[in-house]
């Protein structure tokens, strides 16, 4: 009986089995394709990204807009709320990632991925790439709705793009939190339940919908510390003009901080998950 002979590892693989950057990108690409094909097969899964921005803009501009900016002055509120909604959209989509991952894990295909010579993080990163795509789509629709309702850019297109980008990177960092939740909790429903509990106070206890100056002191303190307020303030300043630096830096700090803590935890959790 001859000894087992294993041929040289293919390009991009070292003898230790570490996966090179190019191979890693290729794997992420194949997994992004998988997620995209899933959407194609199940177009209804895109409804939230398509409809949420439409419903939210109409709802907030017409229900609160008059009350906050005065009847007939809804268009003023558009410029206040649409940048805020960009922040909210990211959080909503990120929240859905948690239950999605939880569901995905119940399927045998995860076992296959985990027995294949790919970096285990690539499965999670591919998911995030696709969800960022969904966020981008939702944000585009949101801005389209905003323009239709009278949104005006007081700065420049570049500023607008910067605002979109900031919302995306912050949203991506939130995804790690929800992925971690999705990998920790038993059921997708539980993930969703916890998600809502986190979501509601953060979204409404923020400067997304109304300026914080009218709130009682304790709430104002909470909203000031709330990273969603910072993000909303940052995109508002980027679109409407005003002091940008402070809120942008704070948002970026949150983004880096959240990712640095939760991404490694999520990957470790994914690696050791045996269910």
């Amino acid at each position: 009986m001859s000894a087992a002979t294993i041929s040289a590892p293919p390009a991009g693989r070292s003898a230790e089995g570490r996966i090179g950057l190019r191979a890693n990108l290729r794997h992420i690409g194949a997994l992004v394709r998988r997620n995209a094909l899933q959407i194609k097969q199940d177009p209804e899964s895109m409804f939230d990204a398509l409809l949420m921005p439409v419903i939210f803009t109409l709802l907030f501009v017409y229900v609160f807009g008059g009350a906050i900016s005065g009847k007939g002055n809804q268009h003023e509120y558009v410029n206040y709320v649409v940048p805020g909604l960009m922040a909210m959209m990211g959080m909503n989509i990120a929240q859905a990632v948690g239950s999605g991952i939880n569901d995905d894990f119940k399927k045998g295909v995860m076992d296959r991925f985990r027995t294949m010579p790919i970096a285990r993080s690539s499965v999670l990163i591919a998911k995030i790439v696709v969800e960022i795509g969904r966020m981008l789509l939702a944000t585009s629709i949101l801005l389209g709705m905003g323009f239709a309702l009278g949104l005006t850019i007081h700065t420049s297109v570049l500023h607008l793009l910067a605002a979109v980008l900031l919302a995306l990177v912050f949203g991506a960092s939130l995804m790690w939190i929800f992925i971690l939740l999705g990998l920790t909790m038993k059921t997708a429903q539980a993930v969703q339940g916890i998600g809502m509990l986190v979501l509601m106070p953060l979204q409404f206890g923020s400067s997304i919908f109304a300026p914080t100056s009218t709130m009682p002191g304790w709430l104002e303190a909470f909203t000031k510390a709330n990273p969603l307020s910072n993000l909303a303030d940052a995109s508002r300043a980027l679109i409407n003009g005003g002091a940008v630096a402070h809120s942008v830096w704070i948002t970026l700090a949150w983004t880096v901080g959240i990712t640095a803590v939760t991404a490694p935890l999520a990957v470790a959790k994914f690696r050791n998950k045996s269910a």
Partner: protein
Amino acid sequence: MTSIKQTSGGGNAVEVRGLVKHYGPTKALDGVDLDVRQGTVLGVLGPNGAGKTTLVRVLSTLIRPDAGSARVAGYDVLTQPRQLRRVIGLTGQYASVDEKLSGRENLYMIGRLLDLSRKDAKGRADEMLERFSLTDAAKRPAGQYSGGMRRRLDLAASMIGRPSVLYLDEPTTGLDPRTRNEVWEEVQRMVADGATVLLTTQYMEEAEQLADELTVFDRGRVIAEGRVEELKAKVGGRTLQIRPAARGDLRAMADTLSRSGLDGVGGAVVDEAEGLVNVAIISDEQLTAIVGLLGERSFRIAGISTHLPSLDEVFLAITGQKASAPADDDTASGTPSGSASDETLEEVAA
């Protein structure tokens, strides 16, 4: 780049030593030792809950054992999981394909994850679809496949990377006989191509068809091992079932056989309900002699079949007791874990 030659002592592709995995009070693996020689098929036979899946999951780096060690193709399961994943293929007890993707997309994705070029991944996907008779269903989502098709797709997915060690966890449980035969043929083909296979099963017949050696599991322990023939001899061969053309001949036929004095043929037992005469035999010569004798005495025979001992009978022979009560398992799909395996001989009309 130099090629890595991995020699595992004595040409063993899989070496397991003292493997332990407990889930609370459940001893899924309780000190398992086993070897699979390079290029052979080891059948791991055991009832539900014996620890077969746990073993496969440890050997494919999905779970870490509490104690013990295992080497696959020379790589340590605990310290070299990345290298190990390059040389193994796994067909789990539960199909591991993406249900929303088509059969072809599933295989293409696996090919890309295994670093094939786009063109090669496409070619290999089509080749495997063809080989597993899935070409017609290639574009349909795997979620719409029948159980047998899904299992075949799963096997195809495991084989895209031409693994040198393949784990098959109950590959035919719940499959109809035709699909089961297809799966067996594929496994035999892979072995002919040089793969080493560790196969778990609840069916003696499957073990006999595919395995060179057998390891019998019960409650996380190995309770018997050896070549298939050795175990069969230990268990006491097969049961020959004869169906007389006329039901009225049942008794006469049984009496004739019991008094025949044929070497090694024990008592013949009448099964009135089924209209069968059952005789325990241990060799093909006895089978021939019995059929010859019945012909001489002008009995008309409507059908003959032989049955391998059921898992229960195997356990009875090895341990003197019944297999531990099977744990609930939703994959058995109506096939009782201890049922006798089906005919190994075609029914012969007389």
